[in-house]
């Protein structure tokens, strides 16, 4: 392999071929994180199930009555929401600190830094996969059969992943400069969960908006609304996709992803100097 590397001032140009060349690093970073969790904990891989299921049980006990009928058994409804939300929140929560946490690596070895937040995302996708297996069990238990709409789950997951990576790129790069990110983030994520239709159906908000003459698509500015909308339409009977909402969410995600990538790349080359 004959190549030339030029080291010169200024931010590095985005090199997809270089990111591709290091692809096995992503695999090993994810493998390392999973391996460590598996080795160090008693329940190992079952921890992936813990957060969404325990959340679903608690919320089912506390909120089910207040929220009223949602068309499907509430535990199942809330589990679908939490499954996707947990993936998003875990990726954003841990991914945003990934550059700070990887400071020792950044100072000692060169590799495309994007792999630090990306590995967190892929790890949370694996957790999502485990949780999805449990979802199958839950659907069987509640006698909810999937239809052909289940194919919509794939774009829902892709949308969530891109949105999470967009946030990760922004926040991890900002977190290097401003320690505030570390402290604000848990609060932000918790507040965001209640503002996003995770525990309650989007209909609640959409209905209110319709009665006050507010256009529906505005709700999609929160990109996770569109992702959840798709995800529930994929799995639960009686849930439809709201096209304006999803379209807005897709646009928002694209915006976050592109600007996040731009900012991350701008900061990337100075990381070792400021960390």
């Amino acid at each position, binding site marked *: 392999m004959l190549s030339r590397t*030029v080291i010169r001032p200024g931010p590095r140009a985005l090199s997809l071929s270089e990111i591709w060349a290091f692809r096995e690093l992503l695999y090993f970073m994810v493998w390392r994180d999973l391996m460590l969790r598996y080795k160090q904990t008693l329940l190992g891989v079952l921890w992936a199930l813990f957060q969404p299921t325990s959340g679903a049980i608690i919320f089912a006990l506390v909120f089910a009555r207040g929220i009223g009928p949602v068309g499907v058994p509430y535990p199942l409804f809330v589990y679908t929401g939490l499954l996707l939300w947990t993936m998003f929140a875990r990726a954003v929560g841990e991914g945003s600190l990934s550059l700070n946490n990887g400071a020792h690596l950044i100072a000692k070895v060169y590799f495309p830094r994007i792999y630090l937040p990306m590995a967190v995302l892929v790890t949370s996708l694996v957790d999502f996969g485990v949780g999805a297996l449990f979802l199958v069990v839950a659907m069987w238990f509640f006698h909810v059969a999937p239809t052909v709409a289940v194919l919509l789950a794939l774009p829902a997951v892709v949308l969530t992943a891109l949105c999470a990576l967009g946030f990760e790129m922004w926040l991890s790069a900002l977190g290097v400069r401003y320690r505030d990110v570390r402290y604000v983030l848990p609060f932000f994520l918790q507040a965001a969960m209640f503002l996003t239709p995770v525990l309650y159906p989007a209909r609640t908000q959409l209905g209110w908006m319709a009665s006050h003459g507010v256009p529906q698509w505005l709700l999609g500015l929160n990109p996770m609304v569109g992702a959840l909308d798709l995800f529930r339409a994929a799995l639960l009977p009686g849930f439809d996709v709201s096209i304006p909402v999803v379209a807005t969410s897709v646009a928002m995600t694209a915006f976050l992803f592109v600007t996040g990538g731009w900012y991350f790349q701008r900061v990337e080359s100075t990381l070792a100097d400021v960390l």
Partner: protein
Amino acid sequence: MVVDGLGKRFDMAAPRINGALRDVIAGLFARLAGKKPDLDARSVWALRDVSFRATAGEVIGLVGGNGAGKSTLLKLLARITVPSEGQAVVSGRLGSLLEVGTGFHPDLTGRENIYLSGAFLGMRRQEVRRRFDEIVEFAGIGKFLDEPVKRYSSGMYVRLAFSVGIHLETEVLVVDEILAVGDAEFQRRCFDKVRSLRGTGGRTIFMVTHNLAALRQMCHRGLLLSHGKLLADGPIDQIIDRYLAQLARGASEDAVSTTSFDVLSATVTARSGPDDVIKTFDPVCMKVRVRARVPISEPGIKLTVLGADRIPLCAIDSRDFLKIGPVDSGGTFELSADIESLPLLPGGYQLRLALNGGESALDEDAPGSFAFDVVESAVYGGRFIDSSFGVFGLRSKVAVHQETS
């Protein structure tokens, strides 16, 4: 590899490292109030105008004191930081580890860590697998391969880390740790391994270590850096000699200062006969006069005698003998150590000083050293001795009992 006018500037006035949003807001108000941030005044060139060429297969030692720019140069070549000016063109793949063992995780096994390190260097699994047996064999970790590396002894850990570093495609290698922890046998194998890579094409290896003797053995070329400038480029022996000469010159200055203390004088004198003539086994007195620049509650002074290539030979620390009371900023004191018999054989030596201060992280070496000579004398009574006798003299009674055959 062609390096052309490479330079790196650090801006001290840039937003503080890991600063908080609060500072930025405070800065905004300061600017609104008409205070302009003073950018240029507080920027520091860690490296400037460094140019050289290197061909594949060279093993190059970087020589220079602390802050000379050695690690900045390595970080630039390793692409860990970006230069402020100039450029470097490297043909071939550039993989680099600034420290052996980077990326190792204590809870993963030796086997797992080898693959992980490879991935950090951008290597594929097949490439690592091809080198795997060699790595394990060289590290000599045998049955510990599938144990988590946290259970390794520090020697084993470093052996594995170095082995990974030297066998995988790393261009930049720092070998300080290996020389500090590895045993003599392993060090010899490291030297052999590095020398075997010399001139074989493929990679250019840069080495940094305070162990100058090791550099002489492993490298064939040296770069002398001082205050961010490339002073000399040439055969390693010449470069190291020049560095040592530079250090000796620094020592002849009257006062040597660090941020926390000034060394006013440091002397080694003979207690019998003319005091500037020191002979092996003479009683001598080491005297240091120090002025503190900051208040120090419990100062301690360590005197280290350095031999050729600045290898530490022996040392004493005042804290093992007595307690020096608190010293105010500007306070001066003199410490003297009487040595009953100086065991050093004839040759040139240096005294290195380090000041420690009880509570704080104060621990500083004075730059340069204070040179003294042990003159040629009839150490063991008779003939003059040469360097084959080593550095220490042994006070001995030698007897013989002859048995009749």
